[in-house]
């Protein structure tokens, strides 16, 4: 095979052993890699609890990983989410994916539970299980320093996961997070503290000149993208560049989504962070965009907050303290917690208690969550469970228990639909409608209309399922498209594929997740938004009105989506669609 190594490493942590398996080429073609193959193995596990020893954690590279295809250095992780109970998955950058592939592995499927804390070290074909009691309780930075991976890629968890935080993250190579859905807790449930991979092999490529051509096309398109490579784009200011747009469009979630405008926003934007911290560019292996930013002043070496972290640790919790954002971001990364969920849970608490935070309180509560102390014992369960326990479930701004990111759905109706329908819960990345509703790519759509959005969301979900399976970075798709990536895929694998062929695989991969969620007991009831969005307006002004979402129009569009996706009116996968996609 070209593109894939043909080898999947199955590790059993109960026995500390492993075996190597190969898949039929047809399965690679149908599920591609990354999210697709992860979902394939997740479904085979059946309806197990997230912490059942036989529940796998799947880490997959893709056919483009470790090639010169732009932005292909990401790894996709899949398991059942401890936070949502649904499919839980996350894409993570850094160099782990490249190293794993170079070591000769398409992916790793981990089952079982180690009797003691363990690290898995994969060096080429050699697999070692390293007892690491000494790392228990250590934060991710200390783990990185102690393991000292050098050229290797390293994913590890911090104390948050070990103390049962439902939104615990996995940190890769010190600065990158598999943040959402609590997969860090999945690691902890298996007593897995870290996974290291190092390899020196090369991926077999069928048509190198063709791949170079595709690469050139993608690079040219990204250079033409103001959002990516412009002087105010991600390459210069990081994803924080979005902050001003959300303010300008009156869709910045404020006061736990009770408002959509945060008055001090213009003083807390990416330009302000750049002035205060002089960040330098940093990025994933094989990426030319380099959207990650590392501070060189005030807090040298600290990763600068991503847009969602900036927004939620300011507007959502009503804080004007820029330094607090950097501190909170750094603390969450070290403790191993998703910043979106952590901030959203604090925002929920603030609404319930009615009391504002000081900076010290915020940091203290974050530590309490991670260390399972005091109020942290409830907060570590995430906003939905926290609010339920306090008898105020309506204050949890979450879908399927996953706290919403920093785009208010009343300001972009495609986003409203995307949040509600996402298989992993309140997530902006499944359909990423911000691309056309805000960034005007491939063309602009009316953000205050549901018209046509059902099919747009469905196609975008399929597209992003492909992106997470190849594996590539979604940001690139603000500029390039599957047309260019299909060319890269064809050049790497030698399998002639068009953009539409890949989209067909994307539909299969996404529908497979709907089937898995159905098996877990999720249907139309879960495909919904918090009531607030249908009853309360956002903060209009500047000739922009932000009314509540029209419930009837939302439900009508959701119904259309179900029809297009091949689901019945309860959101249940239809047998004929399963058959059509070969998912019986």
């Amino acid at each position, binding site marked *: 095979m070209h593109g894939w190594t043909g080898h999947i490493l199955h590790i059993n942590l109960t026995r500390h052993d492993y075996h190597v398996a190969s898949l039929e080429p047809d399965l690679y073609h149908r599920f591609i890699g990354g999210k697709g193959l992860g979902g394939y193995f997740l479904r085979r596990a059946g309806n197990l609890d997230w912490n059942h020893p036989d529940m796998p954690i799947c880490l997959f590279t893709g056919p483009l990983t470790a090639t010169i295809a732009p932005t292909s250095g990401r790894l996709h992780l899949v398991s059942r989410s401890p936070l949502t109970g649904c499919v839980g998955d996350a894409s993570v950058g850094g160099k782990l994916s490249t190293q794993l592939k170079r070591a000769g592995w398409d992916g790793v499927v981990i089952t079982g539970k180690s009797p003691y804390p363990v690290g898995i070290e994969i060096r080429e074909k050699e697999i070692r299980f390293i007892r690491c009691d000494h790392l228990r309780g250590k934060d991710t930075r200390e783990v990185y320093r102690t393991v000292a991976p050098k050229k290797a890629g390293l994913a590890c968890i911090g104390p948050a996961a070990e103390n049962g935080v439902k939104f615990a993250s996995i940190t890769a190579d010190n600065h990158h997070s598999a943040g959402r859905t609590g997969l860090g807790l999945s690691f902890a449930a298996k007593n897995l503290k870290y996974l290291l991979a190092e390899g020196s092999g090369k991926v077999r490529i069928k048509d190198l000149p063709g791949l170079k051509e595709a690469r050139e096309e993608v690079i040219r398109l990204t250079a*033409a993208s103001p959002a990516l490579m412009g002087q105010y784009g991600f390459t210069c200011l990081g994803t924080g560049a979005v902050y001003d747009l959300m303010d300008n469009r009156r869709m910045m979630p404020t006061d736990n989504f009770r408002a959509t405008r945060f008055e001090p926003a213009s003083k807390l934007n990416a*330009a302000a962070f750049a002035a205060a911290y002089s960040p330098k560019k940093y990025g994933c292996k094989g990426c030319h965009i380099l959207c990650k930013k590392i501070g060189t002043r005030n807090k040298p070496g600290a990763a600068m907050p991503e847009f969602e972290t900036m927004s939620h640790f300011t507007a959502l919790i009503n804080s004007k303290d820029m330094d607090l954002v950097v501190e909170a971001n750094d603390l969450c990364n070290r403790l191993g917690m998703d910043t979106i969920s952590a901030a959203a849970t604090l925002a929920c608490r603030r609404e319930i208690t009615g009391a504002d935070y000081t900076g010290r309180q915020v940091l203290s509560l974050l530590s309490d969550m991670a260390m399972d102390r005091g109020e942290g014992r409830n907060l570590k369960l995430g906003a939905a469970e926290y609010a339920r326990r306090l008898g105020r479930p309506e204050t949890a701004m979450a879908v399927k228990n996953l706290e919403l990111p920093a785009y208010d759905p009343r300001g972009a109706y495609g986003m409203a639909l995307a949040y509600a329908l996402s298989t992993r819960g309140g997530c902006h990345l499944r359909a990423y409608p911000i691309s056309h509703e805000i960034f005007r790519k491939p*063309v602009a759509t009316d953000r205050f209309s549901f018209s046509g959005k059902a099919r747009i969301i469905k*196609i975008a979900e399929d597209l992003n399922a492909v992106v997470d399976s190849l594996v590539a970075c979604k940001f690139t798709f603000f500029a390039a498209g599957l047309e260019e990536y299909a060319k890269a895929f064809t050049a790497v694998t030698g399998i002639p594929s*068009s953009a539409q062929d890949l989209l067909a695989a994307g539909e299969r991969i996404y529908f497979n997740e709907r089937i898995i969620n159905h098996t877990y007991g999720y249907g139309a009831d879960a495909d919904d938004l918090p009531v607030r969005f249908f009853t309360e307006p956002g903060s209009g002004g500047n000739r922009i009105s932000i009314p509540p979402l029209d419930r009837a129009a939302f439900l009508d569009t959701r119904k259309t989506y179900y029809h297009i996706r091949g689901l019945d009116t309860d959101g249940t996968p239809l047998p004929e669609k399963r058959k059509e996609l070969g998912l019986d």
Partner: protein
Amino acid sequence: MDALIRKYEKKLIQAGLAEAEGPGRPIVGGLDYTLSWNRKGWETKELEPVFSAMAINSLVFFQPAPPYDKIIAYLAKEALTKNLPIQPEDCETRTFLHDLPVIPGFSTPDIITALKRRKCVIISDTGQNLPDAPKGPAIVAHGTVSPEQGFVVGSSVAFACFVKFFSDYLNHLQCGTAPPDMHGVYDELAPWLTGMAMPIPDLVKGPIQSEERVYEAMIQAGAKTVEYGLVDSYFGNISFCRDNILYISQTGSSLDELAGCIDPVPLDGSSSAGLTASSELTAHLETIARTGADAILHGHPRFSVILSMDCDPKKKQVCRFSTRCHTHCPKKREVLGVPIVPGEVGTGPTGLCNTLPLAFERNKDAAIVYGHGLFTLGRGDFTQAFATLLTVENRCRAHYVDCVTKLRQ
């Protein structure tokens, strides 16, 4: 969806890309829960399966109006003879479309095969397989978000083919290799090569003293640029600097629909509002800083673009950058006194932001980017920028015709 379908039918007609009445009236389809068409015709029955075979939400089909019909028919026939797609070398095609696949006749399976790979397909002659269908070429383009995508691509195809035909013809004449039928097509196109007799429009006069007037001036100048045929609706960009804020059209905005699509970008970098601004924001900012101009207008006037790609074939043959003229042309080139610079869209290492602002330092108020378009400057308002855009294009067209006439003699 119905509103969008009607809107882009109208825009295809307004842009002169398709006929308003009769069998040449464009077809636009949109699919959400159900499939809607702007009109029913023999084509809709044939095109419906495209929606079943592909994950798309819209489709645009049109038989190009004159002069595009003859141009595209010629290039499509040539491409089929060579068994290759049409490969224009203008900036839009190189960046966004890559190449233009061609199929001989109206065949639904062939359309699907081509559209699975590319954003559009050209049908060489719709009457070939369907004797009752109107003769001539057609363009089919799809979208996954909006019918606007099909309109944009259709418009790009027409522009790219126009530029390619006249570039190729000039090159053939210079090399003495023009095929006989190409002369014939050129002669048929002659009526479209006469000068524009349109006067310079009465635009908002400077000094522009309020933000509202800035928006008004930009919206008006943008619309006139489209109306005068100096840019296809979707292309081009425009900016005006006032009180240390650069007001600039948003990326992917139509110059004739700028209301609500202008970003104010503070020059001190205190806001990232320019995130959705035109890809050429950096070039605009740098040009304003270097020249002191207030207004920048960027169109894609066809003959300015065509002449920017004109290079002595003998010199080109021995030039080591001959396959990378658009990024690496080493010569200091001009056409009719207007500098020509290489540069790609955006801010990459070979981006036009590195070359265009320097071109204006030669004390010029106009500069052409190779294979891309013309940028002009104004002070106080858009009057001079517009006048320069129009004048340069008229002179380029006349110069082109002169060159061809001399070479044919």
